[in-house]
């Protein structure tokens, strides 16, 4: 029994990670429709982190960027460590019970944004020289021309452009998991850490 159940559980998480990756990629489509200033590219990662823990979350993040690299833009693969940190930190926060109430979730979103900044800044500076060829470069240019160092310019830009997105994504996941029916969540071990005390 135990041997079967174990593999079985893993396959369930594996199937979950696969659809979560797709959601990370497809989520932006709604953004095009609604024209909101956010990315919506890590909802799947955070969802997996809350349902199945930091390791599963980290795997979702890495593979999302690898697959975007494989089919759209190879550069995305360079940011796989950033996606990994999002999943890992979200999973650790969930494990610590920081997805229980709305305010905890907001703080979790801010913490996730801060953590990803720590990883994204060295990648952006060391590999990309601080720019990416996107609109965010104007902010980096602005901050450095008003006297900020390169590191702080990039850090401000990354954190500033991510904090709203991560707080919102965390809130969406929180709102979803607290109202999910039993038959969709059975078997996800980590969920108990995010269930509000009744």
């Amino acid at each position, binding site marked *: 029994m135990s041997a079967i159940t174990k593999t079985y559980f893993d396959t369930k998480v594996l199937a979950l990670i696969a659809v979560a990756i797709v959601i990370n990629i497809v989520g932006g489509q709604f953004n095009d429709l609604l024209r909101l200033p956010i990315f919506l590219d890590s909802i799947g990662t955070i969802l997996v982190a809350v349902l199945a823990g930091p390791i599963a979350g980290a795997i979702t993040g890495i593979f999302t960027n690898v697959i975007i690299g494989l089919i759209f833009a190879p550069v995305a693969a360079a940011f796989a460590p950033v996606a990994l940190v999002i999943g890992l930190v979200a999973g650790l926060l969930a494990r610590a019970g920081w997805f229980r109430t709305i305010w905890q979730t907001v703080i979790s979103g801010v913490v996730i944004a801060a953590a990803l900044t720590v990883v994204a800044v060295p990648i952006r500076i060391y590999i990309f020289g601080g720019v990416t060829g996107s609109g965010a470069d104007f902010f980096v240019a602005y901050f450095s021309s008003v006297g900020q160092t390169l590191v702080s310019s990039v850090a401000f830009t990354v954190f500033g452009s991510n904090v709203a997105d991560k707080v919102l994504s965390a809130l969406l996941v929180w709102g979803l998991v607290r*109202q*999910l*029916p*039993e*038959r*969709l969540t059975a078997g996800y071990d980590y969920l108990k850490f995010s269930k509000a005390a009744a």
Partner: protein
Amino acid sequence: MLEVRDLGFAYQGQPLLFDGVSTTVPDGHILAVVGRNGAGKSTLFKLLNGLLKPEDGEVLVGGKSISGRKISEIAAHIGTVFQSPEQQLFAGRVEEEVAFGPRQFGLPANQISERVSDALNRTSLLDQIARHPLDLSAAERRFLAIASVLAMRLPVLLLDEAQRGLDRVWTERLESILEAERSAGKSIVMICHDMDFVERNADTVLALGGRTPRQIPVPAFFSDTEVLAEVSVERPTPYRLREFMT
């Protein structure tokens, strides 16, 4: 009353799917849209509810043209029940799901809750009011989608394969809802593969996939072997039984 005048439509880079299609669904009338897969049944629905824009012609509700308006504005006139209710269920409770539509009209709270309980009562879901929509059975979820549309009290209803996969009890519930809506003067259009269901419930048929789609009364349609073959539709059981007897 729903009117379609000289509708023309083609998907990009493809030949015309509709060319001058006209049809009228008076108040208290049920029109069945039939035809094989790919004949354009779903496309027609999307042209009616505004998800697609016709290239020619227009769609009128109560004599006023709705073509060219925003989808969310057309939603105040035409209600659509899609094939898979899972594509719209977002709420954590059945009642919240049904309340969404009426809430868009800015009604006061007591009117909304009155409409919600009425719609749930008519769909036999009143005792499920506090459950999670995804904890319902497949048939109950279909009726939840129907209730969400009923609660909006719109003059035109579109139903896409609403009868599919239902057992006798639920089919009869659906038929009595259709009958009540017809008596209330609604214009109803349904896409339906089940010809027995069409024969029992529809007034006229619009058969797609043939040369010129025409709106034909139900008995005339099922007696016209030529049209039936053209759109490859099976005859309903009563007609086939009569055929066996001769």
